[in-house]
């Protein structure tokens, strides 16, 4: 199958937001049709035929132990081994996805590994679904239809309303960036641009570093934990302000979140070197003023000021 023509880096912003907002669980098929290692390849062949599928995960005690593709069934038929146990002939090195990974990971996996399907595991390693290329295409088309509708509405509304006027210049440097959930490809871009702007203003290197640390931690928090948000920066006249505002889900226990080492990040996020529970404490430590306002169902608003 030719590669899925979706880039997790260079696509249009709307598509990027979709593939990072949608999770693997939004696209996967569930429940999964499986077989046990003790069943024969013939059993697996019939299961494929009866259900119109081309791959069957092999499961033992709720755990994924292998997978049998239609190609393997044909090989077994060819070599007279169709009566053998699935456990003997299955592929053991299975590449799987996690259900809370963004869909962008799934498209990358399809293009990288060239398999027709990937089993989906939950946080505890249990098999919860399976995803093939057509599942992804269907989920994306549904989401893109909704998105195009929304854009069309916005365009017609904008045509009616008169355009807003730009802010009068007041000698302050302002920057604002949209941050997308789970978009690790672009994570840190807002902070990098902000750091460049501070350098351009001739702000002292130590102050710039403090501002960069606060900005990066708050930006990464939005990438890892929020449903998307905005990073805004204002600098000038001896004061740097960073405002991180997101659309939710909000923090149930702010005091815990401010404690070093407390983290709600998942395993795969930690494997990237994030989610150590140091983000908010780091941001507070480098700031002269720090405030956080958050509650479940509402977003999180963090304001930081650094004086120079």
């Amino acid at each position, binding site marked *: 199958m030719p590669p899925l023509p979706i880039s997790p*880096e260079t696509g249009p912003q709307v598509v990027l937001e979709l593939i990072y907002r949608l999770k693997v669980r939004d696209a996967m098929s569930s429940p999964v049709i499986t077989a046990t290692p003790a069943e024969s390849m013939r059993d697996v062949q019939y299961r494929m035929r009866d259900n119109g599928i081309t791959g069957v995960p092999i499961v033992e005690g709720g755990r994924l132990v292998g997978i049998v593709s239609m190609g393997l069934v044909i090989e077994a038929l060819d070599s007279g081994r169709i009566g053998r146990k699935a456990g003997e002939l299955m592929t053991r090195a299975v590449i799987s996805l996690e259900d809370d990974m963004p869909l962008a990971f799934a498209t990358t996996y399809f293009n990288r590994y060239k398999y027709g399907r990937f089993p989906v595991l939950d946080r505890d390693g249990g098999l919860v679904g399976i995803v093939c290329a057509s599942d992804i295409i269907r989920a994306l088309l549904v989401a893109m239809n909704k998105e195009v509708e929304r854009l069309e509405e916005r365009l017609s509304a904008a045509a009616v309303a008169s355009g807003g006027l730009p802010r009068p210049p007041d000698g302050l440097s302002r920057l604002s960036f949209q941050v997308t959930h789970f978009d*690790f*490809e672009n*994570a*840190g*871009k807002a*902070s*990098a641009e902000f*750091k460049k702007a501070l350098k351009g203003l001739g702000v002292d*290197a130590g102050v710039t*570093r403090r501002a*960069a*640390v606060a900005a*990066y*931690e708050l930006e*990464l928090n939005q990438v890892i934990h929020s449903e998307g948000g905005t990073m805004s920066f204002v600098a000038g006249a001896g004061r740097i302000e960073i405002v991180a505002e997101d659309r939710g889900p909000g923090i149930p226990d702010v005091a815990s979140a401010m404690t070093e080492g407390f983290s709600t990040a998942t395993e795969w996020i930690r494997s*990237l*070197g*994030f989610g*150590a529970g*140091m*983000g908010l404490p*780091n941001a507070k*430590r480098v700031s002269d003023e720090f405030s956080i306002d958050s509650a479940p169902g509402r977003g999180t608003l963090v304001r930081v000021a650094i004086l120079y």
Partner: protein
Amino acid sequence: MRISELASALGLETIQDGYEDREISTGYSSDLLSDVMANAKADGVLVTVQAHKNAVAVASLVGLAAIIVCNSRPIPDDMIEAARAERVAVLLSPESAFEVSGRLWTALRRP
């Protein structure tokens, strides 16, 4: 000691050209990017197994000169591109972070 001198002294593979061959004074070993943000010093080297572009972003934000990726971890193309854009050196070692850190510490303290 410059990055290029360090690479030959420690037998490191230089992954991309076009980095700024800066003078290095110190190093920091960690796989937690927040820890690197908080504690790594500018003009230092990061010793890590985090071979992805977010490590480059962190290095650039705190002013690190180079990243040494340990255990011969595969370096993705987008990490190399990011490193080239930020002029941060990416060096690869077959050894563990423990061994690389030991060699780095010795090399930087030699008169």
